[in-house]
């Protein structure tokens, strides 16, 4: 693992934190949008297994992680203080696919990895093209932690909140459907499993491709342990840590997954 120093670790909302980790430039330069890092809190063996986090952004000598406190690992990470040393491994997994004609659909914390994608388009550091539109949903307006950034990105952003506190009132998949009725574009999506399932169905019904950035508990992140499998329709298993985290929706067997 590599050594990093925590520069900041601040809450952006009630339980969403932004972590900045300073490390060597040559490591940073190897990071691609859609890949992830595995973070270990030094000297702690409980939680035992480093947690995976999608790369949220990369600036100067640091990388950023946007995470939601959901369990033991993220709780422990939220207690880390600036100046603390952490260890990490990465970049892990495959970058986002290079799509030409597509939209982004993000649910809640699922937005995290797309910021790096959009930033690298803006900075021309990676050969991606802007999505036609960004669909960004969350439970409430307060959970739309990345909205301010998205406004300046140069492509349309459609918002949905379950409580209607901002944008469309309801699930983000509903505006997505409306859009796909008029536009034939692929979908790059990340968010809670129910949303990903819905996106898979929707894409199929409109005859477009959906690429889903999936999440699962994983241990090695390197393909060693065969622990992080996603069942595929062809009867095989995808190893999310090396074949993912972004998979082609039509190949995933969601029945076997639940």
């Amino acid at each position, binding site marked *: 693992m590599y050594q990093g120093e925590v520069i900041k670790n601040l809450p952006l909302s009630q339980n969403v934190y932004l972590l900045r980790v300073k490390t060597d430039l040559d490591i940073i330069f190897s990071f691609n949008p859609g890949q992830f890092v595995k973070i270990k809190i030094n000297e702690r*063996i409980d939680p035992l297994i480093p947690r995976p986090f999608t790369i949220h952004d990369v600036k100067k000598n640091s990388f950023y992680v946007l995470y939601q406190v959901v369990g033991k690992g993220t709780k422990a990470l939220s207690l880390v203080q600036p100046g603390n040393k952490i260890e990490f491994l990465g970049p892990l997994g495959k970058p986002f696919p290079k799509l030409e004609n597509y939209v982004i659909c993000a649910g809640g914390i699922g937005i995290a990895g797309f910021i790096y994608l959009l930033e690298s388009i803006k900075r021309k550091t990676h050969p991606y093209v802007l999505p036609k539109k960004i669909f960004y949903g969350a439970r409430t307006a307060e959970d739309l932690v990345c909205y301010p950034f998205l406004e300046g990105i140069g492509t349309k952003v459609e918002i949905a909140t379950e409580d209607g506190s901002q944008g469309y009132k309801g699930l983000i998949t509903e505006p997505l459907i409306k859009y796909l009725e008029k536009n034939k574009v692929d979908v790059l999506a990340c968010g809670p499993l129910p949303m990903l399932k819905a996106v898979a169905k929707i894409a199929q019904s409109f005859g477009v491709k959906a690429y889903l950035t999936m999440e699962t508990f994983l241990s090695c992140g390197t393909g060693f342990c065969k622990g992080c499998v996603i069942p595929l329709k062809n009867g095989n298993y995808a190893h999310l840590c090396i074949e993912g985290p972004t998979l082609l929706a039509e190949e995933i067997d969601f029945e076997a997954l639940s």
Partner: protein
Amino acid sequence: MLASGTWGLGENLDLYLTKEEIKSNIGAFVSKGISRFPKKGNPPPRLYETPCGLINSIGLENPGLEVFKRDYLPKLLSYKVPLIINLHGEEIEDFVALAEGFKEEKVDGIELNISCPNVKKGGIAFSSDPKGVKTLVKEVRKVWERFLAVKLSPVGPVYEIAEICEKEGVDALVVANTYPALGVIGLAPLKVIKGGLSGPAIKPLTLRLVYELAQKVELPIIGSGGILSGKDALEYLVCGAKAFQIGVANLIDPTSAVKIIQEMEELKKKHGLFG
């Protein structure tokens, strides 16, 4: 040594360690469990974290004997590190066939995983059936003269089986495999994962086994269980192990073998041990 199933089949190892680091720090590779025929492994979830531990239920996913020899073995041998193949079978014939399958290969030894159920005996694990182990070792020995290790399960008649292995000419005991464990994934409806527990949580249990076994058998013991640091490794050695395997440590950090060896060497010097 790198424990079975914790570093894959070597395909990605050189992404994290240089050939030089591998050669100078790793005493031996123990391959992922190889079965006669390919195994897809278990459906998810295959992993569950527990306090200072990890339950795994991989289901021995592996490409099977022939594909392994064709697609993986050449690269493994290129590391120039002693290679031990972990064999998984559901009946004695499987182990024999596997051992024969490696006879012509330049592998240095085999490790028998006796924690798996013996289908011919109604699925009771070899590890809870001393007679079964006796026959198993006898039969394998007939076709395999090189280094032969048996990986003991920590549950069942461990001491009896260890003594049988010694009598039947096994070269070393690996102590121990993972501990039968259960994790509650969902309370209502109840959803559980059954698998093997490894990690620091069980280190005190395996240390005890190694300590007691080292006094009962002459066979070299290879300690394995929850080693994350050089100190952990040294604890196994002072308790009677002649070597050790690291498992979960590889999953936490693919470079941990190097760190553990370095830490251990410093500690040895500091305490004037095994000079």
